[in-house]
């Protein structure tokens, strides 16, 4: 039996060591996973020998694993903090696309409207019923059910959580003083679910639930989404358009670590964010490094076309120019990567 096993293993090693096949492992954000899995699948069709294995374990996991060097690239929606960067020198943020965090719910209410204040009080557990006066005030003339609210949040360290709580901390002093902002905070109430997939699944399964997920997850699962009151005082529905609006006035810093929640602008959706791939400025593995840099270049150019159909907003033109310049500075074993031969 053991000989047989050994033979199988040898055979396997031989089969997968086929010339040219390269597996590049990445892990992190679930927020852009629908888009990334499309990208990696498409890119694999263009370059059959290149396989990107991306596991959506959450942004917290993406940052941890790239820091520990257990993956070739990470992904996060929340930019790394200074403390995290100090532990992982040489990490470059590459914004890939824009997304919106939407408030999704499972209750018999059409076109729910919420102010930031009301939203924060729901997630603080201060508003426990759908027909609470505060929700009624935001939704004049709408019949609200006498039903308990089941708050659903993330159980893993999440960039989506970071974006969402960053917004809540901006609009609610009470939230700022309480749970605060971060990839995982101390939730006063609610059910925890793993990943954007888990939160979407739990909201879908649980009557009365409210949660926060990336726009794509809510749209693909036909879930209701709330309109949120933005900085300029208008209720805005989450959409690709209103996400782009939120990024319109952004002044992008050189390291791309920026927050665009609670953005100004008449039609700007208030909980939008860039999402990032995390790569090493200099990669030691020549084959992997070259493939990764070429992929990044593909993603911010050709890849952008796949964004809108999957409910992500493409990068603004100016940002694409900036990122293109940054990608050119990435090196492999100290040498620049030629992008000319590609495509």
């Amino acid at each position, binding site marked *: 039996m*053991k000989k047989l*096993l*050994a033979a*199988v*293993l040898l*055979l*396997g*090693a031989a*089969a*997968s*060591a086929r010339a040219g096949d390269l*597996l590049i*492992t990445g*892990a992190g954000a679930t927020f852009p*996973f*629908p888009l990334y*899995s*499309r990208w990696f*699948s498409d890119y694999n069709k263009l370059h059959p020998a290149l*396989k990107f*294995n*991306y*596991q959506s*374990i959450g942004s917290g996991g993406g940052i941890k694993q790239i820091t*520990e*060097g*257990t*993956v070739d690239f990470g992904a996060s929606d929340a930019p790394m903090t200074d403390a995290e960067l100090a532990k992982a020198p040489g990490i470059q943020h590459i914004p890939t696309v824009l997304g919106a965090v939407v408030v999704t719910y499972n209750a018999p209410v059409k076109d729910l409207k919420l102010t930031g204040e009301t939203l924060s009080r729901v997630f603080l557990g201060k508003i426990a019923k759908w027909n609470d006066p505060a929700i009624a005030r935001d939704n004049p003339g709408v019949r609200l059910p006498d039903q308990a609210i089941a708050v659903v949040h993330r159980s893993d360290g999440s960039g989506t959580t970071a974006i969402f709580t960053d917004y809540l901390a901006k609009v609610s002093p009470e939230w700022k003083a309480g749970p605060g902002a971060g990839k995982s905070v101390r939730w006063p109430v609610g059910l925890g*679910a*793993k*990943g954007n*997939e*888990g939160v*979407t*699944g739990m*909201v*879908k399964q649980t009557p009365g639930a409210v949660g926060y997920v990336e726009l794509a*997850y809510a749209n*693909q*699962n036909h879930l209701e989404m709330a309109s949120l009151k933005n900085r300029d005082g208008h209720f805005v529905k989450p959409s690709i358009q209103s996400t782009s609006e939120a990024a319109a006035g952004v002044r992008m810093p050189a390291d791309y670590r920026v927050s665009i929640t609670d953005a100004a602008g008449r039609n700007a959706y208030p909980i939008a964010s860039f999402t990032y791939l995390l790569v090493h400025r200099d990669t030691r593995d020549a084959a992997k490094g070259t493939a990764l840099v070429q992929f990044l270049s593909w993603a911010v150019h050709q890849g952008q076309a796949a964004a809108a159909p999957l409910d992500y907003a493409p990068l603004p033109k100016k940002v694409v120019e900036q990122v293109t310049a940054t990608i050119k500075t990435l090196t492999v074993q100290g040498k620049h990567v030629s992008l000319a031969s590609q495509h």
Partner: protein
Amino acid sequence: MRSLLLRRIRNHLMTALCGLGVLLALAPLASLLWLVVSRGLPGLSLSFFTALPTPVGEPGGGVGNAVVGTGMLVSLACLLGLPLGVGAGVFLAERGDGLFGRTVRFTAEVFSGVPSIVVGIVAYGLVVVPMHHFSALAGALALALLMVPTLSRSTEELVRLVPGSLREASLALGVPQWKTSLRIVLRTARGGIVTAALLAVARAAGETAPLLFTTLNNQYWNLRPDQPTASLTVQIFNYAISPYEDWHQKAWSAALVLLLVVGGLNLLARIAMRNSLGSHR
């Protein structure tokens, strides 16, 4: 004194309550098996076993890589765990009556109840961090660590079933102890050892928790022990908590596949056991 009638009624009542226990215990089993079969069956097709998982929203696809991944993980775990587990079991049966033997036996018994997630952390610390890689090897190590204590105890039980007269006859003929152990005792207990090994393999194939942060996952085929690898159990977990209907369907189908694998191994174990007992009694 209480009347006889009252005591009789009480007797029947308690009998009925205990009988109810049987029903309550078997009801979840019936429900679970029925659902896994009825919901899992429609999703089964040849491509379910041969295709790779598709990106979200793309129809079709299968869990071929996860089936292969589980197979590889379990094979690697067997390479690491079977010799140790069976060997320790033979030690316990042949030399296990002293203080050292009793210590080993008690340790194995107690350790066989250790939560599998704990072993996952151990494998992460021992393999993933130093290797800078999630890998099938790390997962296999975790599975092997879980396998050894249980396997050693069950091997011992089954080796001890070998009649003492066989051993005595061999020794009386002047055969040295080591030859007696290998040629007579172990050969006789072979069927039992195979049974114990099959049960250990079945248990390993169903583990999820120790794989989460050791093998990670992989949406491609992988047969390299030093790479992240898909497994049926992790795939079922990911599909189950997702919001997508077609992924739920795949979770049930994958659960059916896993159940068939585990059930098949248990069945084989029973057959091996019966054969070994039948031929020596």
